[in-house]
């Protein structure tokens, strides 16, 4: 007997909100935008932004270099130099806009895809590659650039960000924190608990959700029946949906949210509406679950070409500038390639090196056993 379905003949649960609203297709009015896909500067009454031509060029440079670094890492994975890579392709503006909104003493808590934020924080891109190459599980000192380690377990870091922000309040400081997470992560208990804690303790944390429309193969509609930014109201703080492919809008809204947080007004949820242009990771095959037309449609909203169009139409940058950025990206590419290839494998004793901050008898014993065992092979193989 083959049973195809046990569902009774009744209509599927009514969503309450049309899918198109959850995905945002019918909601342009809700979307904060300062730069149209054509590169035209528009104003938003709530989020005014003054940027100098110099700043615009600098943002452009960030976007290009971040994309170049990411492309280089993808290529290095294909060549076997990395075990895995999670590309940020398409999300550069969300990351650079929010990253550049931060002050030096602010703190970022990333997922595993925030290479653009890391760039803005001044983390050496090579540091990001260690865990993807398999030489460490993170490796950098988070306190050096106030950029926490990448977190793979979905949503966990949002609670750490909230706790860190609670500490800022206790210290009477005016720093602020950004917690990055994805549309998929919005379903996790940890994320919802972070919302609760942040709200109850009025913590200076900005929840920055990059809704890139996909959680591996699951569309955002698998996670939510309302636009994600509206979740905030149930927790008692504001939510804003911003065009995640508009670096200026991301900058303006995040700056506003961080300032609001540091002035004691508590958390904000920002939903950066964007798109994951590539595969989830280099292990993924998106042709199994999404249509090429969708990806093609998002190409027209590319974050870099719109800023470039703006710079060109306003004559804020010349050929020489674009060529210089291009040259700089070549240099970065070369540095990344060479850096990764010469990254040494760790000594196996790394296994035992940092398990505890203080001596631990069992670890010490097993380390000694391991070393003796390994030495018994030396020269013998």
């Amino acid at each position, binding site marked *: *007997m*083959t*049973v*195809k*379905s*046990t*569902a009774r003949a009744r209509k599927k649960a009514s969503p309450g909100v049309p899918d198109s609203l959850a995905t945002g297709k019918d909601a342009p009015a809700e979307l904060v935008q300062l730069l149209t896909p054509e590169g035209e500067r528009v104003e938003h009454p709530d989020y005014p932004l003054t940027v100098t031509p110099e700043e615009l060029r600098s943002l452009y440079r960030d976007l290009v270099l971040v994309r170049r670094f990411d492309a280089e890492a993808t290529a290095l994975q294909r060549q076997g130099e990395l*075990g*895995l890579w999670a590309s940020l392709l398409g999300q550069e503006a969300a990351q650079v806009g929010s990253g550049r909104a931060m002050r030096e003493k602010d703190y970022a808590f990333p997922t595993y895809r925030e290479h653009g934020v890391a760039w803005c924080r001044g983390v050496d891109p090579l540091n990001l590659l*260690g*865990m*993807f*190459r*398999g*030489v*460490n*599980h993170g490796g950098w000192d988070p306190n050096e650039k106030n950029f926490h380690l990448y977190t*793979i*377990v*979905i949503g966990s870091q949002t609670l750490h960000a909230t706790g860190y922000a609670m500490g800022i309040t206790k210290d009477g400081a005016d720093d602020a924190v950004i917690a990055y997470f994805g549309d*998929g*992560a919005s*379903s*996790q*208990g*940890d994320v919802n608990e972070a919302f609760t804690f942040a709200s109850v303790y009025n913590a200076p944390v900005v929840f920055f959700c990059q809704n890139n429309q996909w*959680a*591996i*193969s*699951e569309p955002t509609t*698998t*996670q939510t029946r309302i636009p994600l930014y509206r979740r905030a109201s149930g927790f008692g703080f504001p939510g804003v949906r911003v065009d995640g492919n508009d670096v200026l809008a991301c900058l303006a809204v995040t700056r506003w949210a961080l300032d609001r947080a540091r002035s004691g007004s508590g958390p904000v949820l920002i939903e950066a509406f964007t798109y994951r242009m590539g595969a989830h990771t280099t*292990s*993924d095959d998106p042709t*199994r*679950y999404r249509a090429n037309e969708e990806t093609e449609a998002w190409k027209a909203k590319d974050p870099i070409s719109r800023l470039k169009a703006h710079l060109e139409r306003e004559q804020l940058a010349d050929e020489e500038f674009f060529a210089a950025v291009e040259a700089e990206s070549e240099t970065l590419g070369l540095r990344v390639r060479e850096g990764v290839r010469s990254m040494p*494998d*760790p*000594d*196996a004793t*790394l*296994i*035992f090196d940092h*398990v505890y901050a203080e001596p*631990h008898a*069992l*670890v010490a014993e*097993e380390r000694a056993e*391991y070393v003796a*065992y*390994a030495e018994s*092979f030396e020269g013998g193989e």
Partner: protein
Amino acid sequence: MSKLTMSKAINEGLRACLETDPKTLIMGEDVGKLGGVFRVTDGLQKDFGEDRVIDTPLAESGIVGTAIGLALRGYRPIVEIQFDGFVYPAFDQIVTQLAKMHARALGHVKMPVTIRIPYAGGIGAVEHHSESHEAYFAHTAGLRVVTPSNPDDAYWMLRQSVESDDPVIFLEPKARYWDKAEISSAPELDLHAAKVVRPGTDLTLLAYGPMVKVCLEAAQAAEQDGHRVEVVDLRSLSPVDFATLEASVKRTGRAVVVHEAPVFMGMGAELAARLTERCFYHLEAPVLRVGGYHAPYPPSRVEEQYLPDLDRVLDAVDRALAF
């Protein structure tokens, strides 16, 4: 059936469950169109529909918690956790609710929930994708814990797990997903029976899941040194088939337990203690253990040094034989 990989064997096992029992459901992240990150559920949503092969929101506690509710309503959920390291958000539901529900209701409710977890290492993955956490589950009364080492067991043990009226933690050794073998037409053994997979007279290697293959290779290598090593595949970690283990160890007089999980407080500790109690006068050497260290699973570039391999197993065999 022709030769199948372990992942395909489990896929076929799931298909058979969905075909034979209309109350079975598959729930998990990316189990639908994608067919799971290891393609274990490939094609099942297409053939059985979105009502029975369910892409859930990204929330493991939610997945297991709602599976418990579905079980209360008469369904038989088969849950997929995407990777070992991501079961922890669901740990509370598994340990405090799923495992105890039957006992708390004095037997009035049953919890036929199967939780499939790709586990253990050796595939060069990033953090949280290589964990061996079987001891946590085996330590929890109310859960049955099993792990196949080959495609045939994977197929039949999955079917038996789904048929069980108790919650079963079904651990799939992901490094063995691509191993191929023939699937027999009927299950040879009870779900919780251990199996002597290679007979020997001098020493018993006790292993399960990913380490059975390593132990079989070690036994073969030991033969070249004139040692006849028996290999027992535990298959079930709760309950353990101690009768089969005891008979083997009484015959050989020596035992070495091998697992990827850390040795300290691991399955090997329990096996060594029980076998010592049961076989004390037959033992020529203490029961030795080979396994992971008391350290987080390391970055992939040094995982080879962390995982028990042929040499480390043979080293323990030599030490046991030298007593």
